């Protein structure tokens, strides 16, 4: 590691705008609520915000005008959730490099703008028709539509290779629903048993209804700054101890993990563990108190656990089914309920939950004495947060 980055940057403020099936609000209104809450959360004056990084919902230039900011660092990413982690990382790097003092990272979704859902050509970005199916490899002419089809294809391969069962997969959604019941902000709080999960209709087999994330409106603001500046604000800093980037290429698949043998990946039995995030953060897996795993579709939780070596290839489904990821289990996973039950917030809800857990603000779902929380995704992106 050429450059000591550990604990140089921090998240200082978080804000969650309205999250609901249909808030009746547009993106800018949703974002306004999230920004107001984030500023109030950390006691930062709006005039201090000099950076803005938009993931989705609006254009950064107009938003800076609407928020009345004078930004010296404005940036924008493609409107995809897997870029939420990289945006936090880039904001952290920019703050430490002195390009900005405080960067507000913004995500919003007004689902009515996307025809009320995904798949079926309603996607805001028309990604199904873009560059050979966009990042998920969708092919509408074959009826291979909706992002969930990629997750289903990856899960089928996994089940066929390792003998994982529908009952094991179902425990991802059941576990997270139980967590969501303890999260006042979650959309889906009604109790759900494995029998309920199995009785729900198949959508894209092997995935059933509750393997899919909720479809909703929502907005989030995460304010990133240097650790030094964060110490002067109202809430204790949540440090970015380590990170590693999103991976892309022929050995990656956005809804799988390397070696699975979907799309153009090489199929292999082993899984090389090349994860500098741990050394950068100075922690080992056994030090991690909780995992926030990107979960627009439940198989992603299984693939994330294996990609990062918490279990061996083919073992994650059984690991979850045995209760290891529960709040009272060996290593709690998605204590907020994740996209499956809290709501689809493109990975930003996961960043917020990491912050809440490390501040001790997670209420009934608090992981006792949480000191290290890891955000991760099966395509290699990760952030290790510490107190």
């Amino acid at each position, binding site marked *: 590691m050429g450059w000591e980055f550990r604990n140089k940057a921090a998240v200082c403020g978080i804000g969650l705008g309205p999250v609901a099936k249909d808030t009746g609000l547009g993106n800018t209104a949703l974002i306004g609520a999230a920004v107001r809450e984030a500023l109030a959360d950390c006691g930062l004056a709006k005039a201090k915000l000099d950076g803005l990084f938009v993931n989705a919902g609006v254009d950064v230039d107009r938003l800076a005008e609407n928020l009345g900011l004078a930004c010296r660092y404005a940036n924008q990413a493609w409107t995809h959730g897997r870029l939420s982690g990289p945006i936090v990382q880039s904001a952290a790097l920019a703050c430490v490099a002195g390009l900005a003092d405080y960067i507000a990272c913004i995500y919003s979704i007004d689902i009515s703008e996307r025809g009320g859902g995904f798949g079926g050509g309603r996607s805001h970005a028309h990604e199904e028709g873009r560059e050979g199916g966009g990042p998920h490899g969708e092919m509408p002419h074959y009826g291979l539509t909706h992002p969930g089809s990629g997750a289903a*294809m990856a899960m089928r391969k996994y089940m066929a290779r390792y003998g994982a069962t529908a009952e094991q997969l179902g425990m991802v959604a059941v576990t997270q629903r139980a967590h969501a019941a303890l999260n006042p902000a979650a959309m889906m709080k009604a109790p759900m048993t494995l029998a309920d999960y199995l009785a729900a209709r198949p959508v894209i087999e092997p995935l059933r209804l509750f393997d899919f994330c909720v479809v909703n409106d929502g907005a989030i603001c995460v304010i990133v700054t240097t650790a030094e500046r964060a110490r002067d604000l109202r809430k204790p800093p949540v440090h970015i101890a380590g990170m590693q980037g999103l991976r892309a290429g022929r050995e990656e698949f956005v809804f799988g993990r390397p070696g699975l043998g979907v799309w153009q990946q090489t199929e292999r039995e082993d899984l090389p563990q090349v994860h500098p995030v741990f050394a950068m953060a100075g922690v080992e897996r056994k030090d991690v108190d909780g995992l926030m795993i990107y979960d627009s579709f439940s198989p992603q939780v299984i693939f994330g656990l294996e990609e990062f070596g918490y279990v061996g290839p083919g073992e994650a489904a059984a690991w979850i089914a045995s209760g290891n990821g529960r709040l009272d289990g060996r290593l709690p996973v998605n204590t907020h309920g994740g996209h499956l039950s809290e709501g689809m917030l493109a990975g930003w809800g996961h960043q917020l939950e990491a912050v809440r857990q490390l501040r001790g603000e997670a209420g009934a779902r608090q992981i006792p004495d949480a000191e290290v929380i890891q955000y991760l995704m099966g395509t290699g992106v990760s952030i290790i947060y510490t107190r």
Partner: protein
Amino acid sequence: MSQRPQPRITDDNRPHWEGAREGRLVLPYCEACARFFYPISPFCPFCLKAPVAWKPVSGRGRVSSWVVFHKAFYPYFADRLPYVVVQVELEEGPRVNGNLFGLDPGSIRLGLPVEATFEREGAEVTLPQFRARAAP
């Protein structure tokens, strides 16, 4: 009657669709690397050589994964539910997608031998598809 969503035929992928109209599965091929590749790209992913050659593949392969749709995200597919989309590992290496015809979804297995078949969709579009074949 609702129309099937159409593939986007572009300068980069036209030989693939022209081949399908003639009943051949045609994929990009790099002469320098002597290998086929997929997804379609105007240059070789291994050596970046352009332009690429286009050659027919055998059309034979094995099912490497599959999904079964029970929901019609496009109205066109409503009468066709449930339908199967397979990922096929071709003998030449690349994996491609298509619908699998003539087999009950419950009898599909990893490694099932399949071969290309062609579904005429209109004057412009013929879709490469797959059906089961006897193992060699």
